[in-house]
């Protein structure tokens, strides 16, 4: 899908969010309603104006439409890796999740050798443990309770 089409879809989505927020705010008490209701109405008006400008520009423009990203499959792959990292933390906890994510990334993506990847993971996990201990950090709870 072209960048121009996606931009219009994105604007419609933002308009819908503002519209829903305005509808939702109407159920609030008078003073609590003031800020979300009027901000949502103003936001919706601005986005609507932007949408009209985009549609007018699109109908006038004779330039070929651009792609959203020069390498969209690669970008989506890295986005999935980031989401996968969070899933690993959710299941195994920060230490094991980070170790799996970092090892896989370094070994398969960065093309580090096996020994180099293992050493890197060991250093990072050691650093996180030390850092967490010194700074008294909290770690996310995980499904396995590890």
């Amino acid at each position, binding site marked *: 899908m072209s960048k121009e089409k996606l*931009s219009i879809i994105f604007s419609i989505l933002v308009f819908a969010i503002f519209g829903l927020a305005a509808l939702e705010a109407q159920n609030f008490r008078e003073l609590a309603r*003031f800020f979300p209701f009027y901000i949502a109405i103003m936001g919706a008006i601005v986005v609507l104006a932007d949408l009209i400008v985009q549609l007018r*520009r699109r109908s006038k423009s004779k330039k070929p439409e651009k792609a959203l990203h020069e390498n969209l499959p690669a970008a989506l792959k890295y*986005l999935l890796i*980031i989401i996968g990292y*969070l899933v690993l*933390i959710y299941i195994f906890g920060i230490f094991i999740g980070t170790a799996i994510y970092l090892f896989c990334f370094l070994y398969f993506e960065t093309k580090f050798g096996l020994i180099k990847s293992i050493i890197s993971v060991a250093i990072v996990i050691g650093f996180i443990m030390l850092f967490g201990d010194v700074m008294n950090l909290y770690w996310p709870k995980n499904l396995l309770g590890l």
Partner: protein
Amino acid sequence: MIDLLSGKQSISSTQSIAGSWLQGVRDSLRNKWLVFRSSVLGTVIGFIPGLGGSVVDWMAWGFAKNTIKDNYFGKGDIRGVIAVESATNSKEGGSLIPTLMFGIPGGGTTAILLGGLTLMGLQAGPRMVTTDLPVTMSIVWTLVFANVIGAVACIVLAKHVARLTLIPANKLVPFLMILLVIGAYQSTRHWGDLIVFVGLGVVAWFMKHLDWPRAPLLIGFVLAVPVERYLWISISRYEYTWLTNPGVIIIGIIIIAILASGIWIERKNKANRGDDDEEGEPMYL
């Protein structure tokens, strides 16, 4: 980070570090008025409790972008860095005012300072500029010396730190991601932080590629809660008469002037370029 990885590149588009620290000093002196007004802006924002740290850099960047002619911010214009750094460094001074005078910390650093004062048996308030003035002056001078020492340390380390920008993304980003995830979780120590971290990141990525400015979203995200709170207090206390308060009118005029100057400068820049194409970067922020 996604773009760096998918483009198989490093943060720096060039593969060598050029320039010298002397060049940085020269650039700052050449833009002394920008340093001055960004510092004033940083001090004023630092003065407002709960506002400073999160938005001062974006606000300074947006303000400079809207008021500097022929800028190319976001594409290597050093004035963008000078404006942001001036404001960031001056905000700590501004945040000392509500901390010492009213006992309201402007940010995390000043909250720790306030705790330290309490431990020493000192109480924030008007006494800090009368009987406890020496303590206040020592805090002020400590801040001055800390900035000088920080500047010297930066000058010494700058070249080494800059080398980080030459590391290929697939070697830097996996480590960076771990730090970001740990940092994001510490704000409220809730899983929601991590979901917001990724969710907002995805939205910002789309905004970047669809030419939507991201700074207003960030500022709105940070300011929404205090703005709603103070608006609620103003309306419940004064109804609509707060709009006639001289302070509110002056702030309103300043906001309109900044917006108008942004539009005027953008039009002038377009006219200078002879650019009649409607497409282009958004002019605000």
